């Protein structure tokens, strides 16, 4: 453990620009949600009406949390936002721990540190302390944002701690994954998979009898029920799990060599297969692992959402009097739910498209593009090789979501026709996803240094418009600029070709302009 404090100080210094943005993001989500909710539902009658409408809207429950939270206005805020803030702090914790443990070992920087008077466990201890500090800051900031906007103090304290608890649990999980896997990419993949599962489990639990929610760290936090009973003990579940995960990580750390994982590397091919013959083959080879992971992840997510679809129908069969209130009846509610989930999957597909396209920039800055471009591979071919992955790959990812959702929903309602139907529905978002990819190419061509930051700002903007436009009360022009908002909300709305054509044309223009920028700029800087 020698040197932990020094390492922690160094880590804090390295995170001084990145970490504040994560904290700001989490705080703003709570701050805006709290203000908006208290404006919208300022009387008990409004809240009562909301309870009534949401009580029957399984889609909203699956996206948000358990309905018991809707008993008070503070609980309503938690209901709407805790699920999302949980994802933000879990990702923050994952990157904090992963970046300072396995990624450092992989690059060899940790070797330099460990050669100094630094103990074997010090980097892990320092990274976990860093994550603990960050999550403590999250807890304090969420408490301040909630209590500062007039919510009860005790509930706000629990709200803050419940948010931080999700973060520290995922920090501990990342610490364990960092001992198992040899490279940081695999660590992030594994933790993100667990995070996705945690979200889906609590969605399934909240829609059903609640049992499955107890298998999810996000579920534990939501079931502390801040402002609607203030139950403190689920926090102990998070703390206990954290302690177990950290212990497991420390034990594994003691049994492995520096730089090694649990699975030793196998020797690979001594010669390239005949298929690895051009830039396209290289791009697909480099990106296939990540594409397969995303496709499986979205397929499973689709299946999870699809299987919930049936319970919506069930609810209306059991409560025909509620269905009478809805224009369009049961069919429309299910379609609205499906449209909502497909819209969400389109955002994830866009996120995949962005990571796949940013691979170009990673190849460029790491110097790996140089030997390829020094061969008879032109800039256009090089760009097209990775672009083919992000364009085809994002279509594939959308398709697996649609097929997964169609399969699961089709099985529960005994209708095989749902598979092609929902696959087609998911592909309606393809032009919008491609437009995001094209926008990344555009900035890559003209402002390469800013490409990663700008690309994620675009995705973040589309996500905020899609998820929070209503509750944040964003003005219409802000919403209309998102290609996802321009895409008809199929299958609820009729699919018009005109908007898709316009989106496609803009995408084509961005691609051409991005290529023109790449042709004329210096490479490698």
């Amino acid at each position: 453990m020698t040197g932990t404090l020094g390492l922690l100080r160094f880590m804090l210094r390295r995170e001084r620009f990145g970490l504040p943005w994560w904290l700001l993001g989490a705080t703003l989500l709570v701050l805006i949600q709290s203000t908006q909710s208290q404006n919208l539902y300022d009387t008990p009658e409004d809240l009562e009406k909301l309870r009534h409408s949401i009580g029957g809207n399984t889609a909203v429950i699956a996206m948000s949390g358990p309905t018991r939270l809707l008993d008070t206005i503070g609980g309503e805020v938690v209901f709407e936002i805790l699920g999302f803030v949980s994802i933000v702090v879990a990702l923050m914790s994952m990157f904090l721990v992963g970046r300072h443990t396995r990624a450092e070992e992989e690059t060899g920087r940790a070797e330099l540190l460990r050669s100094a008077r630094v103990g074997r466990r010090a980097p892990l201890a320092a990274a976990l302390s860093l994550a603990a500090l960050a999550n403590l800051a999250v807890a304090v900031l969420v408490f301040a944002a909630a209590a500062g906007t007039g919510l009860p103090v005790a509930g706000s304290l629990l709200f803050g701690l419940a948010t931080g608890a999700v973060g520290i649990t995922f920090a501990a999980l990342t610490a364990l994954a960092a001992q198992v896997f040899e490279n940081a990419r695999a660590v992030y993949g594994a933790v993100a998979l667990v995070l996705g599962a945690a979200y889906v489990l609590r969605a399934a639990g909240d829609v059903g009898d609640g049992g499955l929610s107890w298998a999810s760290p996000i579920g534990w936090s939501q079931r502390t029920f801040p402002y609607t009973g203030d139950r403190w003990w689920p926090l102990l579940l998070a703390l206990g799990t954290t302690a177990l995960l950290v212990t497991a990580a420390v034990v594994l750390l003691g049994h492995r060599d520096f730089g090694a994982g649990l699975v030793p590397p196998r020797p690979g091919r001594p010669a390239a297969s005949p298929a690895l013959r051009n830039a396209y083959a290289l791009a697909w080879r480099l990106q296939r692992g990540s594409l397969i992971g995303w496709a499986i992840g979205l397929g499973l997510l689709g299946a999870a959402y699809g299987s919930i679809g049936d319970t919506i129908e069930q609810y209306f069969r059991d409560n025909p009097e509620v269905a009478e209130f809805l224009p369009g009846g049961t069919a429309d509610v299910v379609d609205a739910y499906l449209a909502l989930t497909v819209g969400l999957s389109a955002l994830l597909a866009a996120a995949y498209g962005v990571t796949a396209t940013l691979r170009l920039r990673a190849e460029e800055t790491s110097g790996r593009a140089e030997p390829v471009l020094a061969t008879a591979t032109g800039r256009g071919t090089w760009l097209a090789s990775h672009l083919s992955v992000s364009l085809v790959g994002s279509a594939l990812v959308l398709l697996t979501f649609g097929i997964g959702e169609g399969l699961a929903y089709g099985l529960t309602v005994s209708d095989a026709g749902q598979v092609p139907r929902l696959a087609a529905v998911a592909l309606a978002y393809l032009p919008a996803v491609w437009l995001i990819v094209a926008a990344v190419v555009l900035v890559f061509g003209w402002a390469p240094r800013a490409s990663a930051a700008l690309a994620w700002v675009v995705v973040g903007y589309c996500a905020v418009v899609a998820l929070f436009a209503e509750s944040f009360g964003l003005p219409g022009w802000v919403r209309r600029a998102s290609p996802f908002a321009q895409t008809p909300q199929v299958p609820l709305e009729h699919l018009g070709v005109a908007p898709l054509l316009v989106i496609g044309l803009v995408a084509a223009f961005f691609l051409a302009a991005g290529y023109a920028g790449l042709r004329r700029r210096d490479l490698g800087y």
Partner: protein
Amino acid sequence: MENAISVAGLTKRFGRVTALDGLDLTVAQGEVHGFLGPNGAGKTTAIRVLLGLLRPDAGEVRLLGGDPVRDAVALHSRLAYVPGDVTLWPGITGGEVIDLLGRLRGGFDRRRRDELLERFDLDPRKKARTYSKGNRQKVALIAALAADVELLLLDEPTSGLDPLMESVFQQCIHEVKRQGRTVLLSSHILAEAEALCDRVSIIRLGRTVESGTLGELRHLTRTSVTVETADPLAGIEALPGVHDAVVEDHHARFDVDTAQLDAVVRRLAPLGVRSLTSTPPTLEELFLRHYGDEQAAAERVPS
């Protein structure tokens, strides 16, 4: 016969930093050309311009009779490049990278590849993330040397290789030269350039300061002389072309401009030379003189 590389007045700026400031470089076909300079002199930038990765701000650049930017793809199938700092794809084996780069160049000699693997003692089955710096360098070198190309652009190719591998590399370059191929070898290892190069260009602060065969460059430099004579050596330090003389009666040590060597030796002969050692300037000294000027200038400024 047209030159393999001809660069005249090449200027490249990055913001306010001028990396290349009117660089001239001529490499004839079939020669091994040393491209020498201290770190940060602009060697890598110049090679990246030759590869068309960077666009020149000013100047004339011709590579194998073509324009490096416009004809990049056509030219690149006739050359092979080894970067100074080789980074590889972590999940791909060395053998796969060698084959891939060969195919991307438009073909390579498989027998030669296997022979080179043997000579450089590289295990092609290991994933690139497990290779040391020297082994990554070997991967890039084998890929380049196995390629059937006219021109090799090598950016400090031996950094990270041990002395044994360095001598293997030198053998390979001799073979390449016998095959009549052209090599541009950037280096700051002077022994390497002395052993391999027909001609050298010395660059400093983005500008060519000297260019020619090693013999020609030596004319511009000084020879170190240590001499012992029967008669006292008075007045030697005053001769034209003599520098840094230390004279003690019958002993003297001094440097003399190579152009004045003959006159100085004539002056010494009547004094009865008992022993005489003269050392030709090494590239090291050539280099130190050009680099040293800058240091001297830097030292002069504060005083």
